């Protein structure tokens, strides 16, 4: 049974697992909405390998889970997410980056050549994960791009520190936020431009970059060429693609994409980083990536050989506090054993892990649970929020051993 027909079975209320067992829907993680399953397809954008199409325009495409078997996500498999339909093809020789804002005393423009030449170049590995990754699994379902597991990727980013560029612009102590704008726009003049800001302290973090390269190659067009912002540890909404303007500002940014979108209810999530200049009585902007894991080599309904070693592989990641441990359960969460952690490419990166067991004949429900350096872990149940963010619900993958 392939994944699609399995998940459709779930959506219909009952699931046929391994061709043997009928399980009530409540025992399984919620699947994607039926319409999302019907409209998805594998499709290759120009310069990309086939990805799972969620929408054509704006283009929203996710990486199939199997491609996370590599800790570094290849550029041509890296997910694509845009909010607005007009995405210009920018010529890197003509591209200009404007640095300014009312908290910058010496505004200036940069060419790509100047960006590379005038500041120290740095590299780091970091997870770029859409705030709405796994939204499609929300229970109950919520509006938005109905992502499954693949609205994320891990890459080695090369660029310069944003703080070095801001220093040259003479940013004053009055700066509250630093605001980014990209070259994209909506089809209508009336559509709010996609403009995002981060707190001034986050902009001054030594890990926050203006990057032009990922995995040793220029950024792909669909991932923000010629340059984008990289905010390690924070969700991808702040990683402005095709960045053309950076402004240090003395008042909080007030556009739609900051004031109304990308927010979570206050008090529901135990995140560390706060974005106080944007907080209201009810909600706050999403900030860091919640600790999470993904099983990459075993799929629901898979048949395996009883008594033979089964190697369960996966990745774990968080906002940069570091993965302390990954535990695996093969009995639906009743007992947990430590997985073996693999090489650590850096605290903002995916961390590989594996766990080996010999399944006895019958059905085994496999889950992985990552814990980070702060002791934070994943949740059993989705913490409901209207936009479907911060989904780190434990996977429950049924395998049938015979």
């Amino acid at each position, binding site marked *: 049974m392939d994944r699609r027909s399995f998940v459709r079975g779930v959506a219909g209320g009952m699931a046929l697992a391994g061709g043997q067992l009928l399980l009530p829907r409540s025992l399984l993680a919620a699947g994607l*909405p*039926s*319409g*999302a399953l*019907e*409209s*998805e397809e594998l*499709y290759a*954008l*120009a310069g990309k390998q086939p990805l799972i*199409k*969620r*929408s*054509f*325009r*704006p*283009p929203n495409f996710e990486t199939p889970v199997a491609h996370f078997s590599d800790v570094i996500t290849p550029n041509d498999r890296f997910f694509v997410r845009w909010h607005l*339909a*007009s*995405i*210009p*093809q920018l010529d890197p020789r003509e591209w200009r980056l404007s640095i300014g804002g009312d908290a910058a005393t010496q505004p200036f423009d940069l060419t790509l050549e100047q960006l590379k030449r005038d500041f120290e170049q740095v590299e780091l590995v970091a997870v770029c994960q859409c705030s709405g990754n796994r939204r*499609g699994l929300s229970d*109950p*379902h919520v*509006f*938005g*791009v*109905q992502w499954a597991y693949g609205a994320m990727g891990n890459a080695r980013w090369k660029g310069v520190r944003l703080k070095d560029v801001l220093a040259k612009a003479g940013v004053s102590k009055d700066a509250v936020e630093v605001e980014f*704008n*990209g*070259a*994209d*726009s*909506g*089809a*209508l*003049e*009336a*559509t*709010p*431009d996609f403009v995002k800001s981060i707190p001034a302290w986050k902009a001054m973090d030594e890990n926050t970059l203006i990057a032009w390269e990922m995995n040793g190659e220029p950024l792909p*067009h669909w991932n923000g060429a010629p340059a984008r912002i990289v905010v390690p540890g924070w969700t991808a909404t702040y990683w402005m693609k095709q960045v*053309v*303007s950076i402004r240090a500002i003395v008042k909080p940014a007030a556009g*739609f994409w900051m004031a*109304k979108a990308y927010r979570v209810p206050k008090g529901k999530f135990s995140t560390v980083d706060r974005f106080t200049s944007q907080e209201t009585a009810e909600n706050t902007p999403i900030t860091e990536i919640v600790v999470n894991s993904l099983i990459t080599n075993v799929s629901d309904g898979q048949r395996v050989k009883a008594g033979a070693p089964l190697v369960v592989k996966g990745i774990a990641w968080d906002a940069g506090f570091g993965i302390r441990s990954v535990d695996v359960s093969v009995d639906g969460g009743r007992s947990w054993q430590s997985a073996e952690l693999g090489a650590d490419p850096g605290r903002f990166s995916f961390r590989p892990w594996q766990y080996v067991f010999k399944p006895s004949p019958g059905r085994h429900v496999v889950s992985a649970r990552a814990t980070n350096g702060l002791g934070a872990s994943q949740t059993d149940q989705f913490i409901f929020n209207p936009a479907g963010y911060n989904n780190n619900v434990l996977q429950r993958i049924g395998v049938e051993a015979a």
Partner: protein
Amino acid sequence: MKATQALLASAALLACTGALADETRIRMADAPETPTLIANCSGCHSLDYIQMNSRFVKRAGWEAEVKKMVSVMGAPVSEADAAKLVDYLTREYGVAE
């Protein structure tokens, strides 16, 4: 980036060609309101946005979504057309009360 929008419009069309060409494969539920849907919605986004967001909301959910497209995203949809769109989306891409 609105200042550059006019200058970049032709380049943007080129960049989008790959995606645009394949949108023609999207087939929406055929009904008297389908031409109204295409006329009001497909200027800004492909209609698979609607398909993937089905079927899990009742009428109030689609009403809120149409309202958001008009009041937040600036879609110039007449009140008469908005009413037709809500009827169509509820019937074809929603769930019963």
